[in-house]
């Protein structure tokens, strides 16, 4: 059994190596084409500026970002943890409800209700809105 796990994840590690190797190989192939004079290399200072629809970039890079993005990231963390906690319950739910009846449902119902209350609170507070209407 343990050997089986090692074999499975060994294959996955090999898959990872090949999957990382494929894009690296493609980049190297394209890079090597430079040496056989197939791929041009004629850079100029104009080419090496950032693309800004034909203008020379004149503004500094944006360092500030809207607080909304941060809200969504925080909400993502909260609800992603919920997902992770629900997964093991969902797998064993059929077995559990056969054995213990409705307890298996109500045990998670408490958790889901708490999470749903948090979700409704976030909704009420306007954390899910991208634009806030003017009257608030």
């Amino acid at each position, binding site marked *: 059994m343990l050997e089986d796990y090692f074999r499975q994840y*060994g294959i996955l590690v090999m898959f990872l190596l*090949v999957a990382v190797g494929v894009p690296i190989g*493609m980049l190297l192939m394209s890079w090597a*084409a430079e040496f056989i004079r197939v791929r041009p290399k004629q850079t100029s200072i104009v080419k090496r500026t950032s693309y800004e629809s034909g203008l020379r970039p004149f503004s500094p890079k944006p360092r500030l970002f809207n607080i909304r993005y941060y809200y*969504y990231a925080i909400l993502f963390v909260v609800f992603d943890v919920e997902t992770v906690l629900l997964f093991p319950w969902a797998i064993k739910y059929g*077995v559990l409800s056969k054995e213990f*009846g409705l307890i298996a449902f109500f045990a998670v119902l408490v958790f889901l209700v708490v999470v749903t209350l948090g979700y409704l609170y976030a909704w009420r507070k306007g954390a*899910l809105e991208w634009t806030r209407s003017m009257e608030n």
Partner: protein
Amino acid sequence: MNSTFLDNSLFRNIYCYLAGGSDGCASRGYDTAILPAGFEWLAFAITAFIIINIVINAGLGAVIVYIWGERRILGRIQNRTGPNRWGPFGMFTSVADAIKTLFKEDIVPDEADRWLFNLAPILMVFPVLMVLAVIPFGVGTFVVDINVGILFVIAVTSVSGISVVLASWASGNRISIFAGMRSVAMLISYEIPMALSLIGVLMLAGSMSLGAIVEAQDLPFILVQPLGLFVFLIAAQAETSRTPFDLIEAESELAAGYLNDYSSMKFGIFFLAEFLATIVASMLIVTLFLGGWRGWDPIPSQVWFAGKTVLVLLFIMWMRFSWPRLRVDQILVLAWKGLFELTLINIFVTAILIAIWPDPGMTELLIMSVINWIVFFISVWLVSKLLRPSDYSAPTPQPNRPAYPVATDELPDEVAYTGGATR
């Protein structure tokens, strides 16, 4: 060699050809061997390497065909011919495109962070390829069937969200950075409904292994889990940033988004990753909801899988061709106020139904699917009512005040002092 690996027809043929005399193979009629006894580990490694390369190359080849097919069908839908010059029906157009991308000049802008700039395309494509490792393509045709398959898929695909941020930030472009911020908001918002929509499937199948989920689908889960399929289809399209949800690379707003400064093969890899992600997403939909490789007998299971995948791909293409791009606030509201609720409803209803019938047979599954379809229509209708924008009412004209701005000699004080920046 464990017997579960020898059940895998891909593995068995190559492994037993290399190490035929070993324990499992001799009983299955293989006697000659290339490698001597004691080198089973080498046979295993070589076998795994060959199969991994076959699967990855098949995926890359499928992308070439898919790009051609999508351009042809897009042409037909828009009442034009599509690519038709190079090869029969323009079949070699995407091959020519791939070769052209290889030989284009590679420009790294001065403002870019050179290491991260080169790392981003690699990080973009490898998670998509990794998903191919756990998908069962047919009876005994899979690379590996781990028991946490779905968790693996969700964990690995979330890396591509990071790579979009990395690409946009590393290229140091002002427009790209906006694309990166949007991707943070959008990709992570859709990850939650995508993961939660699978909980109904997990409850019914009782396992996370994709092979076991296919085995559990005596009735395809599209019938039992319509809400799950609906949410997963939309969320998967958003995760792969296809056109109704492609505000990360919206041409009319952000030039090309995070792809602005990429050229040559790096751009090609991003392009490849996007189309491969679509194929992989439709494979996942087939595996989880459409019964995977299951079908009727004379046709082999791999053909069933491929046919269903093409059907789902056609549906996804159809959605792409028909719908305009959503606005950023519409997309986020759809994820948080629409799909999230639908997944919660799905979890509640499925949990109650399974609590009533813990071990559903075919009759119970049919009753469940009828109930679930009723719930599907009612809840989608309610959510669409909820998300509908409020009716626009024209402001009532006031008799003393003109509706258009008028130049006056007397400006209000606040406007005069602050140059108009009062709000």
